[in-house]
C-alpha cells in the first residue's frame, strides 16, 4: 500500500498530525511516523522506511534534534529524498523563520498556519503525485515524450500548451543534483538497463514538481483564485460571483485541491463570447479593464476593483506580481517582465515595477 512518512522529534505533535492525516487519506495511504532518537543510525532507519514501504511522500520537521539527534535537521532528509527522487515536504512549527516561504523546485513547503492547513496540503500533494503516477502507469506513451513539459501537456490533455509548459524551463539537474547521480548510476557500464518502473518514478517526480511548484505557483496556463481576480481586474471579494460564469474553465487535474484553479485559455474563450456585448464605442486602458467590463455586462452590475494598486487603484489589473502578490497591469510604470525570476511560461505574472526597480540591480531580476 502506498504510504506517507512523517518525521518529527515531537511525538505528541507527530501523533496528532498522523491521526488527522490518516483520517483524511483513509484507505488511500498508510501514514508512517518516525521520531529520531539519540544513538539512532538515522540514514539506516530512513533507508529501512523507504525500502520496506511504498513511500510516495515524505514530510519532515525542520529541527529534529530535540531527542538527542544533534545536528540532524530536515534539510538532511530533504537531501536523502532528492537523491532517491521521492517527493519531500518540510515545515517548521517551532521557529517559522527557519525556512524560507519559497521552496526550491524539488521541495514542498508545508504550511503551518493551522493543523487543518497542514493536513489539507499534505493530502492534496500526496493525491496529486499518486494521480500523476497512475496516469503514467496507464499511458505508456507518456514515457516517450520529448520532455517533461511535453509529457505534462499530454497528461493534462493540453498538448497545445506544450510550448508554454516548456517555458517553465527548469534546468532540472541544477535544481536537484541528485538526479544527475541517479542518471549516472543507470548509465554506467555495470548497471542493467533501466526498467520502466524507474523511468515512471522519475517522470512522476519531475512532472509532479514541475506542475505543483512551477506551473501552479507562477500563473500562466492555469490560474488560481488570486491570479484569476488579477487577470480579470476585479477584487477578490468578487471571485465567487465571477466563478459562476467560468465553469467551462475548471481545472480538474492533479493538485486541484490546493486552490480553485482555472484554465486560462478557456477563461479567454468564455470572455471572447462575452466581449461581443461590449459596445464598439467603448475604449479601455488595458486588457484587464475590457475583461472586467465583459463580465460586468454579463452580470448586470459593477464589479469591485482590487484597491491595493496605488497607481490605478485596481482599475487596470490583468497580471499578478508573484512576489508582492498584488494585481498589476501592463503600464510601463506599473510592471515589467522578468526572464530570470519569473518563468517565461508564467504569462499572468509580472514584476511590480517599484519592487523591481528597488531589487533588480542587486538580485538580477
Amino acid at each position, binding site marked *: 500500500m502506498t504510504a506517507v512518512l512523517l518525521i518529527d522529534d515531537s511525538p505528541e505533535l507527530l501523533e496528532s498530525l498522523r491521526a488527522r492525516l490518516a483520517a483524511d487519506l483513509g484507505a488511500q495511504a498508510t501514514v508512517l511516523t518516525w521520531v529520531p532518537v539519540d544513538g539512532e543510525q538515522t540514514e539506516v532507519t530512513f533507508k529501512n522506511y523507504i525500502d520496506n514501504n511504498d513511500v510516495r511522500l515524505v514530510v519532515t520537521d525542520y529541527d529534529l534534534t530535540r531527542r538527542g539527534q544533534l545536528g540532524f535537521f530536515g534539510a538532511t532528509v530533504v537531501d536523502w529524498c532528492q537523491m532517491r527522487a521521492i517527493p519531500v515536504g518540510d515545515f517548521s512549527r517551532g521557529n517559522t523563520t527557519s525556512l524560507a516561504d519559497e521552496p526550491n523546485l524539488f521541495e514542498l513547503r508545508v504550511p503551518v498556519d493551522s493543523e487543518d492547513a497542514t493536513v489539507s496540503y499534505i493530502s492534496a500533494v500526496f493525491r496529486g503525485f499518486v494521480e500523476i503516477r497512475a496516469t503514467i502507469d496507464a499511458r505508456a506513451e507518456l514515457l516517450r515524450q520529448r520532455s517533461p513539459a511535453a509529457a505534462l501537456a499530454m497528461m493534462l490533455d493540453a498538448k497545445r500548451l506544450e*510550448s*508554454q509548459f516548456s*517555458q517553465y524551463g527548469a534546468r532540472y539537474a541544477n535544481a536537484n543534483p541528485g538526479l544527475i547521480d541517479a542518471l549516472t548510476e543507470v548509465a554506467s557500464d555495470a548497471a542493467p538497463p533501466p526498467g520502466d518502473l524507474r523511468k515512471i518514478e522519475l517522470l512522476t517526480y519531475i512532472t509532479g514538481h514541475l506542475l505543483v511548484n512551477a506551473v501552479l505557483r507562477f500563473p500562466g496556463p492555469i490560474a488560481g483564485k488570486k491570479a484569476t481576480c488579477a487577470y480579470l481586474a476585479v477584487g477578490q471579494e468578487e471571485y465567487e460571483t465571477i466563478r459562476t460564469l467560468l465553469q467551462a474553465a475548471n481545472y480538474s487535474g492533479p493538485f486541484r485541491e490546493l486552490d480553485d484553479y482555472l484554465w486560462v485559455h478557456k477563461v479567454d474563450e468564455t470572455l*471572447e463570447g462575452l466581449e461581443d456585448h461590449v459596445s*464598439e464605442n467603448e*475604449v*479601455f486602458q488595458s486588457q484587464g479593464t475590457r475583461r472586467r467590463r465583459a463580465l460586468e455586462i454579463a452580470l448586470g452590475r459593477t464589479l469591485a476593483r482590487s484597491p491595493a494598486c496605488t497607481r490605478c487603484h485596481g482599475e487596470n489589473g490583468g497580471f499578478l506580481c508573484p512576489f508582492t502578490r498584488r494585481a498589476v497591469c501592463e503600464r510601463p510604470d506599473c510592471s515589467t517582465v522578468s526572464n530570470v525570476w519569473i518563468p517565461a*511560461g508564467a504569462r499572468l505574472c509580472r514584476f511590480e515595477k517599484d519592487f523591481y526597480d528597488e531589487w533588480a540591480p542587486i538580485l538580477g531580476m
Partner: protein
Amino acid sequence: MALGKVEAIAQRLLVRLWDDIKAVLSDLNVPTPRPTDDGYRLFEVRPVQAADGPVEVDIARIVFQLPERFSAPTGRTNLYVHVRGRLGLDANALQEGRLRTTSFNTEVAYFRHGRAGLKHVFGAHYDSDAKSLAHPVFHAQMKCYNERGSDVSDSFSLDCASESVITGVFGTARIPTAQLDFFSVVMQLCADHLIDENADDTRRLAFNRMRELRHRFQGAGYAWPFGQAAECMRSAHWYDDAPPIALV
C-alpha cells in the same frame, strides 16, 4: 493607451503570438532579445483612424543576439540584428480573431561584433507597395542604419561605437522579395542562424513549431489586384501590369 475593440483584439493576438514565438526562441537557445521582449512594449497599437480601417501597429526596436552561422563555435554569438517596423492589420479579420496583414514595413540592421569592434554589415528595409507603377509588391531596399549601433551597444553593454562598412550603399534598387514582415524576419533569422542539416531534433522540432506559428499570421497577398500574387510570389507576379499612359 486607449484600446477600442479591434485595437484590444490586435494587441491580444499579437502578444499571444509573440509569447509563443518566444517559447520557440528559448528552445533554440536564443538569448533574451533586448532592450525588452515584453509583447506589450513591443507592439504599440495605434488608435484606429477610420471605421473598418486597418489597425496600425508600431513595432519597437528589438535586438537579437545570434551566432553568425549555426555551425559557429559554441557560444560565439557575435551577430546582433536590430529590427523595428510597423504592421497594418485588417480590422474585419481581427473581429474574427485572425491576424491578417494589410501592409507592413520592417527595418533590419545587422551588426557584427569582433576584435575590431562593432561593424554595421547589412541594412535593409522591407515593405510592400501595390499602387506605384513598376514597384514589386514586396521588396527590399538596402540602407545604412549605422546610428542604430548605439541601441546594440547600450542593450548588450558592448562599450564600443559602431562603424559602418556599408556607408553609401546604393539604396534605390528595389529587390523583389517575399513578405518580410516582422514575424517573417524572425523566422528568417531562425533559418539563417539557428538551424542547418546538422541540427538535432530539439531544434528541428522548434523550427517546425515556428513554421506552424507563422500560419497564425496571414500575408497581404490576398489583397493585391493581380490575383496570382495571393498564392504565388514567383517573379512573374512581382510586378503589376503597367497600364498604357492613356489609362493612367
